[in-house]
């Protein structure tokens, strides 16, 4: 299951730079499309003037208060999930690991169900901090259990503890939701995952956490390459295995916790983006992380735009579309080449 370092040599730097540039262009294009497209059919000139010289009319305020925050949230959530996924797969050396394995999604879900069922929380503004607290607490418990003992948090144990603990929380949420139809009713909307209709200030609330998470993640990139060799070899080449893993887990928790708290569980982005990226640029984390940072938002924004168009003028939640868009791509990639890690 270790990422083989041999194929890195086969990819010239020029090809990687090219992929990175192409991804950036696609992201810029999707950003524009996401602002221009929606259930209100507005011409591009209106969009343009709304951004440059707003007149306070209804069309302009649609763009400025609905579409722009939604697009920015999509970029943040996509970037956070893409990078967290790459980090998680590198940390656990398991290409099936997605950030949810730390219990982040299930922790957030459990906190919100408990809030709704027990504390009587009803306002979506309250979901944000409840979800974030749940995500962080769940990740902390998973890591604390996995890190006990002499070996520290070895990848297999981290994966198993995460899956088991996450499953417990999911089961508990499910039980709470099924006992009371009202709770179920609220939970099913949160569970679908969406970046629209968020309360004001969501973006600025999660931005600091995501920035810190990204800085930590990029600081780990080089060390993650050493970690791919296996714990013993990584120590032999001078890496602080325990420290890297702790920093990585903190970064994943901040990134995913913030994204999930803001948008609900958007599955599959964190799992699929690193696979796609590895097939493009090879196993070097110093290339994987930046490209995941760009392609994560591309997937989320594209999914969100498609969600607005398929049943226009109604909308599909972005969490429902990501998998539909990502899964065929992932299958095609896996069939085209030898799987990127095995």
């Amino acid at each position, binding site marked *: *299951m270790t990422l083989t370092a041999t194929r890195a040599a086969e990819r010239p730097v020029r090809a990687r730079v090219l992929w990175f540039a192409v991804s950036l262009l696609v992201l810029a294009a999707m950003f524009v499309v996401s602002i221009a497209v929606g259930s209100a059919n507005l011409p591009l000139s209106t969009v343009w003037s709304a951004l440059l010289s707003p007149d306070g009319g209804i069309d302009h305020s649609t763009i400025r208060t609905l579409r722009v925050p939604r697009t920015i949230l999509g970029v943040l959530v996509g970037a956070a999930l893409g990078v967290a996924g790459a980090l998680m797969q590198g940390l656990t050396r*398991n*290409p*099936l690991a997605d950030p949810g394995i730390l219990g982040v999604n299930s922790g957030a879900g459990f906190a919100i169900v408990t809030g709704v069922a027990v504390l009587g929380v009803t306002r979506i503004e309250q979901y944000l901090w409840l979800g974030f607290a749940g995500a962080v607490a769940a990740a902390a418990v998973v890591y604390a*259990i*996995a890190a*006990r*003992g*002499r*070996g520290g948090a070895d990848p*297999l*144990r981290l*994966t*198993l*503890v995460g*899956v*088991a*603990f*996450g*499953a*417990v929380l*999911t*089961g*508990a949420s*499910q*039980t709470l*939701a*099924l*006992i009371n*139809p009202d709770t*179920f*009713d609220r939970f*099913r*909307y949160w*569970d*679908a*995952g969406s970046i629209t209709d968020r309360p004001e200030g969501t973006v600025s609330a999660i931005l600091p956490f995501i920035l810190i998470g990204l800085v930590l993640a990029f600081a780990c990139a080089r060390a993650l390459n050493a970690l791919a060799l296996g714990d013993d070899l990584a120590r032999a080449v001078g890496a602080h295995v325990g420290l890297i893993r702790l920093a990585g887990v903190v970064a994943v928790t901040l990134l995913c916790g913030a994204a999930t708290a803001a948008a609900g569980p958007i*599955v*599959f982005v964190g*799992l*699929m983006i690193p*696979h796609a990226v590895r097939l493009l640029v090879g196993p070097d984390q110093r290339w994987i992380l930046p490209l995941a940072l760009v392609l994560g938002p591309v997937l989320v924004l594209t999914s969100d735009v498609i969600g607005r168009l398929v049943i226009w003028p109604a909308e*599909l*939640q972005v*969490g*429902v*579309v*990501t*998998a*539909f868009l*990502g*899964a*065929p791509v*992932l*299958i095609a990639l*896996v*069939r085209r080449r030898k*799987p990127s*890690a*095995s």
Partner: protein
Amino acid sequence: MTRALVLRAGPFSLRASGRAFVVDTILACVLLGCVTVALMLGSRVLSPGEVLAALAPGADATDRLVVLEWRAPRALAAALFGACLGLSGAIFQSLTRNPLGSPDVIGLSAGSYTGVVCVLSLGGAGYAALATGAVAGGLATALAVYLLAFQRGMHGFRLIIVGIAISAMLSSVNRWFSVKADLDVALQAAVWGAGTLNNVEWLPLSYSALAALALVLALPAAGRRMRQLELGDDTAGMLGLSIERTKVLLVVLGTALTAVVTAITGPVAFIALAAPQIARRLTGHGSVDLIGAALTGAVLLSISDLIAQHAISGVALPVGAVTVCLGGGYLVWLLVRESKTS
């Protein structure tokens, strides 16, 4: 060499290590205890003696009805289905050589849920219609995953990736249905999707018991081939194993074992994933342990069903929600203990 117990009868031989034999015996006793308790508990509590008396011919008609018609099918179903799920999980985890490679993860559960969702949205109702939908959905998903993953041979890792991708797509459909459908229909689907033993009766149970028996007959051959396959494709090929045929056999066997259960209970989560991992830690086996996995699965589902029925009086929880909490909690505890001793 560890001490081992070997039973021979003609061409058949059964080899068990001393510890595995002891553990399996204990598990079997616990299972027997669970079944007995399940027969005793209910709105009319019986003593073990009264249960035995009710089983004998000429007993009190009410006791006989309660024990034989109401409680016995459910108790036996829990044991049988738990064993099937444990076996199925052991087969898939061995095939993919990954602890995450359980039938839930590669999409069978999501597929049966989607089958049920289709039936419900086409206006179907009633037990038989839902069961048909669940089995058809699960089998169609397994077939799709296998065909999409097949490419000059079946690679275990590719199977999981394709499975996760398909599973994510189907979960999207399910979540979309959950948001779009009326609350009571969505709730009905969610209860089915969590897995429940509330509707077990003798006739359907006897069909699935026959099917399970037929599948179990194939297991000794499968277990031998699995141990060879775990040496790696190349080594197993050199030992004279026909790799692809073996893999097809294992996929069919694992899928069929899950389908037998899903037809009656809906997808019961997590037993297939947890049982082989728990069994491995209890018996100290390095390799696949089919008997241990089956017994662990049976005990897990039996205890879970007792809790689901009797923990909260007046509320019949779906057993799937309990298996997840119980199995996950136990697995976490085992991992904590493991890390202390290592």
